[in-house]
């Protein structure tokens, strides 16, 4: 094993930190993140409230931790959902080929016409803003991305000799897809998933900031920022920490994804 790429190491450390904190918040936070205490509002950092309190006297550290958990959950669900639908479509396209492949790819093109924000806007207009709609919107934009990745790497595997041999031996396409194609495209899919995880965190933050995502009292970095923005003259520090959290998480998953790609596909690494 050669030396691990630096982006992989840094990414892994950041991701471990963010995921660790998110997991910890499941069992423990310094305070209840939703506990109001108006008398302690805008509290300075102390040994009780490590980063101080917000405009309603809620403990900042606890809120940031709970927000980390929510953010990870949204990204996980959205990428899993969109990713599995996308991969299934992509595998279907590359297994059957012909007009099925054409249709799937044209649909994927169509998906690119709708950034997550536009889709979230439509859902919010119809059903009202909610975290579920945000998740659906982010999942939706992941479908074409994964469909393309799965099809492109799937098509490569279909031309390999052992696959041709399996076909000659009379195995059906469904079995071949499960036995040979899926395991071989897993690396590419995981790399993409890591990168899309970063994108999803960013998207959730933006949607929540705009009020299309997490609704009160759920904690969210994006929503904390939109509240902090109105208090910028009073408590500028409230606008700093959530942003730092977003950057840490996005940077972590982004670097980890790049690092994984460098390790699994040296050709791509050089091209970048």
């Amino acid at each position, binding site marked *: 094993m050669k030396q691990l790429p630096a982006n992989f190491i840094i990414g892994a450390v950041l991701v471990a930190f963010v995921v660790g904190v998110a997991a910890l918040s499941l069992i423990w936070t310094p305070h209840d993140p939703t506990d109001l205490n108006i008398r302690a509002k805008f509290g300075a950092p102390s040994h009780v409230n490590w980063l101080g309190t917000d405009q309603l006297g809620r403990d900042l550290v606890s809120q940031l931790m709970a927000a980390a958990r929510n953010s990870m959950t949204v990204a996980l669900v959205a990428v899993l959902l969109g990713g599995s639908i996308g991969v299934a479509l992509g595998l279907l396209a590359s297994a059957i080929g012909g007009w099925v492949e054409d249709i799937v790819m044209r649909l994927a093109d169509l998906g690119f016409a709708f950034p997550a924000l*536009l889709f979230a806007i439509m859902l919010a207009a119809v059903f009202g803003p909610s975290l579920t709609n945000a998740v659906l919107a982010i999942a939706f934009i992941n479908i074409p991305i994964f469909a393309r990745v799965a099809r492109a790497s799937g098509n490569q595997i279909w031309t390999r000799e052992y696959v041709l041999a399996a076909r000659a031996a009379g195995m059906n396409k469904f079995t071949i897809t499960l036995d040979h194609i899926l395991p071989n495209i897993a690396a590419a899919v995981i790399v993409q998933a890591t990168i899309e995880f970063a994108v999803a965190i960013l998207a959730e933050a933006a949607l929540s900031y705009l009020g299309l995502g997490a609704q009160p009292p759920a904690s969210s970095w*994006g929503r904390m920022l939109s509240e902090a923005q109105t208090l910028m003259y009073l408590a500028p520090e409230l*606008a700093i920490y959530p942003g730092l959290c977003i950057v840490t998480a996005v940077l972590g998953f982004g670097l980890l994804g790049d690092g994984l790609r460098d390790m699994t596909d040296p050709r791509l690494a050089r091209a970048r």
Partner: protein
Amino acid sequence: MSYFLLRRTIGFLATLVAVSVVVFAVMNVLPGDPALTILGLDATDDALAALRDDLGLNDPLLARYFGWVAGALVGDFGTSHSFRVPVAELIAERLPMTLSLAVAGMILTLIIALTVGIYAASHHGKPGDWITMFLSQLGIAIPAFWLSILLVLLFAVNLRWLPPGGFAGWSDPVAAMRSLVLPTVALALVQSAVLARVTRSSALEVMRQDFTRTARASGFSQRRILWRHVLPNALVPIVTIVGMQFAALVTGTIVIENVFYLPGLGRLIFQSIANRDLPTVQALVMLFAVIVVTANFVVDLLYVLIDPRLKART
């Protein structure tokens, strides 16, 4: 050449039709009864019936779709339920703000990204390269709205050089420009982080090619080689990303307008969501999607202009 154009144009039109179907379906089929969505559960039956009549909801779905498309083609998007004026009028009022923000953002993005990308490529493997690439990696991870907040904190709250938001119209051009500085910078910085990386790697690829060596053997300065020979050849991948970025930029304006309280289409969309103004949201989403699709179509055409070899092949 003409075959290529024809194919791309048909693909472009087909995508537009598909986009309109998706938008229409989501906004009209998903809610079940749009009138109920708009007026809410406590609306009277009379009011609901009146609104259904107003929006033409009693017609068959297909007829409504074609009616909507036909109207949109001549610039008639129906009437805004909440503002009680034609949606087209609302759009015409606010489009200049959004477009000027997007175009200014795009220009600034290009300036920053090309300069930084070419700089990094020409300093390949040296500290200048590492530093710019580290900063761009960071830039990619920073949400535009947080960067906006930081810029406001620094330049409006602390230094008081620029207004923190709002827009008073073009009657005072200096004030108008000043209120657009921070939004434009916020929009451009994040976008240029991605583009600078693409520019760098594309330029590095070109610098490895033989004709760069020919240019050097012709005694040209490093500067001339980079800008006159390397950059034009590095443009094809750059233009691809720029096409996607213009799309990201236009939707980015939705966010930025809300951060800085700018009266553009992005603000209008959110006001309409809050007002349950479905016709307006539908028109705006369609408009943004059209801009995105068109940007990508234009990029396809640009390739042909940039690269004479494509002209021969198509």
